[in-house]
Structures are given as C-alpha cells and as structure tokens.
C-alpha cells in the first residue's frame, strides 16, 4: 500500500487539476454574482458534446477545438445570464438558484432527447501515451490538463486584475451599488462574467474529454465537487480554486486508497463541511459576513 501513496497522490493531482478547471468558471460566477449556479454541470455536459461532435463530424482534435468552443460558450453564457437568469429570477438569490436548476433540467433532457443517453468517448491516439513521473505513469492528456489548469488560472487572474472589464467585474463583486454609481453597467458586467465562467467550463471540457466520456448526466459527477472546490478555495479566488482543486484531488485519492473508493468519497465532503464550519471564507478568501 505504501508504495502506492506517491503514485496515488500524483494521480490525485491530475484529477484535481480537472476539478480546478471546472471550478475556475464557477468561482468567478460565485464570487461576482454571488449565486449558486446549478446549471454549471449541465454546461460542462453541453461543452463535452460540443467537443465530441466537432471531433466526430469535422475531425477536430479536442485541443484544437478550444478556440471554437470557448468563444461559443462565452456567447452562450452571456446570453443565458442576460436573457434568462437575470430577467427570470428578478434578482432574488433563491430564485437564481431555482432558475439555474430549471435550466439544468432543460439542458440535460434536451441532450437526452437529441443525443440519447449513449455513452460516448473520443478515441485519440495520445490517450495512452504515458508520461513517467517518478514512480507513476500519467497519461499525457492529464499532464496537459494539469498545466492547462495553471495557465487558465493565470489568464483569468490577468483578465480580472489587469484589464478594464476585469476592473469592472471586481468593482461589481465588491459593491454593486457603488459600481453602478460610478457608471459601470452592472447587468452587462454580470453577463460578461457569466460568459467568461461558461467559456472556462468549455475549456475544461476540451481538456477533459480525451480521458473521459460524455452522457447527458455527466455533469452531476462534477458539479458537487466543483462547489466544494470553490468554497474551499474561497469564492472568487482563482488561486484558491486551483490549489483547492488539486488538494481535493489528492484528498480523494488518498481517502480512496485507505478507505475504499465508496467510503473514500466521504473525504471530499467532510473536508467541505469542516471548511464551511471553521473557515467559511475558504483557504484564500477574506472573511466577509
């Protein structure tokens, strides 16, 4: 067993990178709009189908699909926030939650209707190309996802901290009213923010699919972990999402190793509860109450 710890941790890190990728978009949405976006998993599912069909119909490599899928999903996210979530929720937090829930029901079942519940995978030649890291073999796509997660977090950080729209997003996140007073269009900023978050999830889909599958229900597998990652990292913190995603991957891997995979899942949720109780602002957040 002890010989497995290191490879398990390395494996956990690469799984964690995927959690981080999925959570990056969510943390932006959570941090700025202060809403629980239950449709996040469904958006991931839609993006996975997007990559899948680009691959099957047009022969796109999943990685090369990023420049197509990501802008597409930015537009989708923008339109959802502008056209559905904002007007339908009337600005009430609890309604936002229900609206996103209803959206996820709609998306999941549209997918079921159009694409059936067949499990689909993308067979790429490099799925079995292994990279030797110390005692462990790690599939190349996971190594790529690992570094891509860091790159994404860095890019997001730059966008938020070094651009005009980023400045607006930060202003809106901190003080909606104040931002409004200085002439920032809050609704517009929210929508951009939702768009960026959705684009992130699309990138995650491209990086995920070489080692995963897609079905209409695939989002459920990630949505809870993504929330955990966001809370653990501190809402709105990209570095936090990255680190906590990796950490959760490792926690999950080690708990799985020592408690068995079934009981081992408990590790993530216990960590989640403890963090919420004792450090609700997360590892990287400031406590605001």
């Amino acid at each position: 067993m002890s010989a497995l710890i290191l490879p398990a941790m390395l494996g956990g890190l690469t799984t964690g990178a995927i959690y981080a990728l999925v959570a990056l978009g969510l943390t932006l949405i959570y941090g700025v709009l202060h809403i629980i976006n239950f449709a996040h998993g469904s958006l991931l599912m839609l993006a996975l189908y997007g990559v899948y069909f680009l691959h099957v119909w047009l022969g796109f490599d999943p990685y090369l699909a990023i420049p197509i899928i990501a802008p597409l999903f930015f537009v989708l996210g923008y339109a959802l926030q502008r056209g559905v979530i904002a007007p339908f929720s009337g600005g009430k937090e609890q309604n936002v939650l229900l609206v996103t829930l209803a959206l996820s029901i709609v998306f999941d079942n549209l997918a079921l209707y159009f694409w059936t519940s067949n499990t689909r995978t993308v067979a790429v030649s490099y799925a079995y190309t292994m990279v030797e890291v110390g005692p462990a073999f790690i599939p190349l796509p996971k190594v790529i996802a690992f570094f891509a997660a860091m790159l994404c977090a860095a890019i997001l950080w730059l966008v938020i901290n070094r651009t005009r729209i980023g400045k607006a997003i930060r202003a809106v996140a901190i003080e909606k009213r104040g931002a409004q007073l200085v002439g920032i269009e809050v609704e517009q900023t929210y929508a951009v923010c939702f768009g960026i978050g959705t684009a992130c999830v699309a990138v995650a889909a491209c990086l995920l699919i070489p080692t995963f599958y897609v079905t209409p229900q695939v989002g459920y597998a990630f949505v809870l972990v993504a929330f955990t990652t966001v809370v653990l990292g501190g809402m709105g913190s990209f570095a936090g999402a990255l680190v906590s995603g990796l950490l959760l991957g490792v926690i999950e891997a080690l708990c799985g190793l020592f408690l068995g995979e079934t009981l081992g899942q408990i590790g993530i949720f216990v960590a989640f509860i403890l963090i919420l109780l004792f450090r609700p602002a997360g590892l990287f957040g400031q406590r605001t109450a």
Partner: protein
Amino acid sequence: MTSRDENWTTSAISRRNLLKAGAASTAVGLIGAPTVLRAQTPTVKIGILEPLTGALSYNGTQARAGAQFAIDAINAAGGIKSMGGAKLEPVVADAQSRPEVAAAEVDKLAQAGVSVFIGCQASALGLASSQAAARYNLAQVFDVGTAEQVVERGLKNVFRFTPGVNKCTSTALENLKTLNANAGNPVKTAAIVHEDGPFGSGLAKLLNERLPGMGIQVVETISHPTPQRDFTNIALRVKAAKPDMIIPSNYINEYTLFAMALRQQRVETKAIYSILGGGASNIKFVREQNDAAQYVMDCNHWYDPRKPESQALAKKAAEAKLDMTYDIMVAYACIQLIADSLERAKSGDREKMIEALASSTYSGSIMPYGPTKFVNGNNEGAQPVNTQIRGDKIELVFPKEYATAEAVFPMPPRG
C-alpha cells in the same frame, strides 16, 4: 451521430392510447356512461415499463426498442393465433429511474388494461413496480433484475425470465473453472472491481465466498461508486496486487474508464473476466476503445446468435442504427415468452396470464435457455453465457453449443 433515437411512432401512438384510456375511465367515473372505444381487430395490451429518462435511460431506451422489435415481429407473423390473430399492442411507460415513479406507472398500466408488463432494468425499480403490480394480480416479466431480493418476496406475479446474480455468478465460475482447467490453471489470483450498488455488491460477496474453493485467491476487492470520476487509483491498486485475473462488474461509463486506466497504467493480467459487466458486452465500447477492449471476457445475458430470429433482430437493430446490446435481446425474449403464454392462455386475462407464465416450459426464445421453469418467480432454465471481444466483434465463446468463436484464455500479452 451514431445512434440517434428513432421516431417510435408506434409507441407514441400507444402512449396516446394510454392517455385515452385514462381519460375514458375518468369520464366513466364522472358521467357514468361507459363508452369504451373498441378496436377493429382484437388486441392484447402489453406494458413496457422502462427507465426512459434519468440515470438508467440508456438501458431503458434500448429495452423498449427490443420489446418493440419483438411485438412488430409477432404481429407481422399473425399475432396470437389462439386468440384469433390478436395483435400485441405496446403501452410504454417511463419509470424515470425512480422507484416511486415506477410504482405509480404500474397503476397507469393497470388502468390502461395491460395483460402483463415487462420491466424495468434495475432491481430497485423492479422491486417497487412488482410490489405495486401484485395489488392488481398483474404479472411482471423481469427483463433484467438481477438482485435476488426480486424473487425472495413470495410475490405470485413476479417472473424473472433472465438469470439472477446467483445464477450468473455460479455459471460464470463454472465456466471460468473449465476455461482455467483447459489452459492448465494459469489463473491463481483475482482482483474484483465492482460498483457499490445492489448488483455489484451482491456479486462481490458471492465471489469472495466461492473463488477460494476453486483454487483462486481473491487478492483485492475494490468497490467504487457510480459515477466514479477517476480510475487511476483503482488501476494502481490492482496493479500492486498483481492478480492473474481481474473481475470487473460495473456500468458502461465506469467500465470504459476502468479499461482505459488499466491500459494506461500498463496493468498486465492473464484475463479480464467480467461478470454482468456493463461495457464488456457493449459494442460501443468495443468500437470506441478497441485497444482496451481486446480479449475482455464477460459472463452476461446474451442471445443465441445462431438462431434465425436472432439474426433478424440484429439486422433490424442495425437498420434502426441501434447498437446491439443485451437490453434489446432480453426485452425481445421477454415479449416472446409473453406471446407464448398468451397462446396457451387463449386470453389476456391477468389471472390466466399468471397461470400461463407460471406453467411455462417455453424454450423457443432467442436466448440460449433451456425450457422455462419458474420457481418462486425465478426462471431456472435461464443461464448467462460468456462473450469475448475479438477485433471489432463480440463473440459468444461459451458454452460450446452456442459458441461463435473459440475462447482465448489466457489472453495473449499486450504490446
């Protein structure tokens, strides 16, 4: 798109009939003027209760298709002859992958006047639906419902046509014993990887009890949830245990990921011998993960591919752009069994259906089963078979009398 759901107009119509039946009965109650529309030719309504949405929707949709193929075939061949060529009419209901919904749908089926129904892929759903059906003396023919709890309740309306987990496991073990002996007993250790639901857990328990008696030590038993996102760890544990054989038992998504992880982590074994494995008998897995799938063996529900009806079914499925999975085969066979019972009962009466099913000795289905014999609702004539993935095909390799290819055991070392 590979297998876009076809337009099931026939079932759509019958769904409307169901609605009509419901509406008519309400009208009966309200107005007190029973005006039931009579069909021109006599029909017998057969319920098809499957999870068409939710987590199990893939299996449910496949099963519905299989049942529809069977009904079409029987109707085309002249319907139920003893009943004046009565046509079978499907009444489709969606169990939504939720037990309470399955139970509620049984009420609707009963109201719609079905004589019998098939369903519903998962044991949890089947337990709920057969319980509800017992109230109506309505027979349920289980297509897949492997948990033994299904037949342990003493319900008279339960007919599990396919083998349960106990039968599958013992057959799988017997077959394994033979295969292993023929190859000079190369397999001495095994690792079990199973999903933590009813079927996987029950199976793992049985295997742990029985494998040692066959001279195979269980060196590792790993359960995992559904969905499980990553199988690296499990592959590593399996690799560390160095088993001669791996026994996976899970649904297709997890099976796919597991097979990929085994390959990625270069886990070498002499055999991958799955029992009721979701992926190993799924042609989609073979197509999309062909490398990882080679020589994987599965003991599962499967039809007798040599029968002409089987071949006709395979052709129809291909025309409908459906993958040929065991869900289709089993549902098809269940309808065949029902048609045979109807011939003998000469009536769609529920009571008579139960009698006819209980006394069935039917052996003409597409499944490689002996004569049907229901004991406490369990068909003792049923048996699973061994399949093996070879190239881009799933071949039946065991038992010999149905085999389409020779088993390769142990599997050749991979490149």
